[in-house]
């Protein structure tokens, strides 16, 4: 733990230490009071003991921060111990539909009960030294509020970044449909970044599966504009260079009409209206025929099982 105190905080040091000692001494009472405050009460609905326990942890963290004199330092080591817990509490409030303002308000409401207890420590609650201590506590509680906000915001950003990554991966699985036939069901917006991922994973799959037929299914792509069409054509051209024939399937009536009006020439691209049609085409090109079992039993091919 850091003990050195920077110059600018030196003046407030006595007050900060006083607050630290007070928080240590009254930890139990503060925790008990906080357990009834909106923030703790609504997060720990099952057991009040849990709320009190959380209150003790937060009070201890504040005491540790105050002891170092870094009252307004978001990065004070003392906060690290409770950062996760505060983040979880704020996230739990956010899940109930409360916005950042609401959470900030609830954290601010924690100050009142502690301030009351602190004033009661002094024989004269409004004497200058009492005011000093209250001021130090106010700064400290303000920092706590900032820490909670920062934790909440960065948790949200992390979540968004993680989901974006997941989306890139989830949205581009390459599926092996048959010997030397692979398919990519495209879902969502096909922007430049996505189509790059699609192209790479498709070309990899063509090599790995020794695929001769690659089906790009665009059933799940809501809008096909000229840029999306261009991405598709580039992917088709790249697949062709790798020796695979590409079939674009899942072209809905509305999309077909739009492509025609837009003036996009997909004449060089093999297209089918459904994935099933595209697969049937790829199979028949390979000399594979799908027929009912009874009919297949009559042919010599039945022995391939």
């Amino acid at each position, binding site marked *: 733990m850091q003990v050195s105190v920077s110059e600018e905080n030196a003046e407030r040091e006595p007050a900060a230490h006083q607050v630290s000692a007070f928080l240590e001494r009254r930890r139990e009472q503060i925790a008990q009071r906080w357990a009834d405050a909106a923030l703790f009460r609504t997060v720990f609905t099952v057991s009040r003991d849990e709320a009190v326990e959380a209150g003790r942890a937060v009070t201890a963290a504040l005491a540790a921060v105050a002891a170092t004199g870094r009252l307004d330092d978001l990065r004070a080591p003392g906060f690290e111990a409770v950062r996760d817990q505060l983040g979880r509490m704020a996230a739990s409030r956010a899940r109930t539909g409360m916005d950042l303002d609401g959470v900030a308000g609830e954290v601010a409401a924690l100050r009142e009960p502690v301030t009351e207890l602190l004033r009661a420590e002094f024989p004269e609650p409004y004497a200058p030294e009492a005011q000093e201590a209250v001021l130090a506590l106010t700064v400290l509680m303000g920092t706590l509020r900032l820490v909670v906000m920062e934790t909440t915001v960065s948790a949200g950003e992390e979540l968004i970044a993680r989901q974006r990554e997941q989306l890139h991966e989830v949205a581009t699985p390459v599926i092996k449909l048959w010997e030397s036939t692979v398919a990519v069901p495209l879902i969502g917006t096909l*922007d430049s970044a996505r189509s790059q991922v699609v192209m790479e994973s498709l070309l990899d799959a063509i090599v790995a599966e020794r695929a001769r037929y690659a089906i790009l299914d665009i059933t799940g792509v809501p*809008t096909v*504009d*000229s*840029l999306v069409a261009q991405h598709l054509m580039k992917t088709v051209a790249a697949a062709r260079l790798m020796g695979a024939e590409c079939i674009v399937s899942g072209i809905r009536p*509305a999309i077909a009409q*739009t492509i025609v*009006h*837009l*003036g996009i020439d997909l004449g060089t691209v093999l297209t089918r209206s459904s994935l099933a049609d595209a697969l049937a085409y790829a199979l028949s090109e390979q000399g594979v025929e799908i027929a009912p079992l009874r009919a297949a039993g009559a042919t010599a091919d039945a022995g391939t099982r």
Partner: protein
Amino acid sequence: MMQASRHAGPADLPIGSDADLAWVRQQVRQAAAELGFGLVQQTKLVTAASELARNTLVHGGGGHVRITPLDAGSTHGLRLDFVDTGPGIRDLDQALTDGYTSGGGLGLGLSGAKRLVQEFEVDSRPGEGTTVTVTAWATVVPPSRTVP
């Protein structure tokens, strides 16, 4: 069908990034669906909006789109104004030619979008910016456009 106030007034959406393009498409689709556009009409308008919004972003350096619901008695329409303050279009006829591109695209954005809507207007001043206004109607009136 005469309750114009049922629909929200004009809405301005910023166009400054790829994520904004997706948002514009979504909002246009939603507005068109609420006004009773059929699936084909919706798809056409959304595609035109996608092309024009991308032009605003790529060629105009960003701007905004104003979405205005229209009411013409028995039918509803949607007007989209794409506004940027970019360099403007020097040669409009050339820009409207199929296959002409100043970027790396297919050269179908502006001309294609024109074919996807019923009314199309470009107001471009070199050095000041470009406003492209398109209007589509839920019920398609037989096209009065004459073939040039």
